């Protein structure tokens, strides 16, 4: 593949936003997006914001402490089986 074929537009890049942030596209596609982001400040800002947003959501949703008694409750239930 030559250099010309690898260039993708802002629109094509944006279509890959969700899959890119989740690393759910091929290594070749990842590289195409990376190249576009390196050259396009606007898209890079949006992509960075989306990654930051997903990480913030992940951190917030994962902050749920399991009750200390849950394991013993399960063990007791299993013992009665």
């Amino acid at each position, binding site marked *: 593949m030559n250099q010309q074929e690898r260039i993708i537009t802002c629109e094509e890049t*944006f279509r890959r*936003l*969700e*899959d890119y942030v*989740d690393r*759910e596209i091929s290594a070749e596609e990842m590289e195409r997006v990376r190249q576009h982001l390196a050259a396009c400040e606007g898209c890079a800002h*949006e992509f960075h*914001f*989306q990654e*930051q*947003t*997903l990480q*913030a*959501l*992940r*951190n*917030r*949703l*994962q902050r*749920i402490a*399991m*009750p200390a008694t*849950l*394991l013993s*409750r*399960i*063990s007791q*239930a*299993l*013992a009665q*089986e």
Partner: protein
Amino acid sequence: MSENRQNQRETAQFEALLLPILPKAYGTAYHLTHSRDDAEDLIQEASLQAYRAFHTFQTGTNFQAWFFKILINLFRNHCRKRKREPEIAILDDAPDLYLYTQTAQTGLQKSHSNPVEVVLERMNEAHIRCAIAALPDEYQIVCILYFINELAYQEIADMVGVPVGTVRSRLHRGRKILQKSLWHVAEEEHLLPITKKLSYEGNPV
């Protein structure tokens, strides 16, 4: 080996596999049921069902995926039985980059380096619960598995029992809806930091 000792050994094996995944299983159950009590009940029921079916689990395969399949199926049965609370409005769509646009327009992007984190830190469990509840049930399942367990699309597809393309579309759409519902909750509860309102281009309105 006596039957009793065999049972004890199986129980110990089961618990050894269950213990490391229990915190994330509980987190998943909590966000699905929106209740600590219901989450505990769901995890206990899933554990019992898994224990009863433990002879069908193939050693060396993914216990977490196997257990979460049971958990999700139980939750779906629970959904079918319960009636959704009428005050919860289900959102069916949202534009791309909703939080990006909103934080730009309200000036939060100028005043904070990580505006979404700032807003999320102001939200309590009830606010988060309310925002998640705006997602349709099947979208909630996929999004919560994604956010709590950090799984690949294929792993989620295996747990939920749908094609990977369905996971992709539900997750992408669900995340958009979640962004919109989080913003709405933050607005309604007056949780947004006060800033000078800006136009999309960043000029004062």
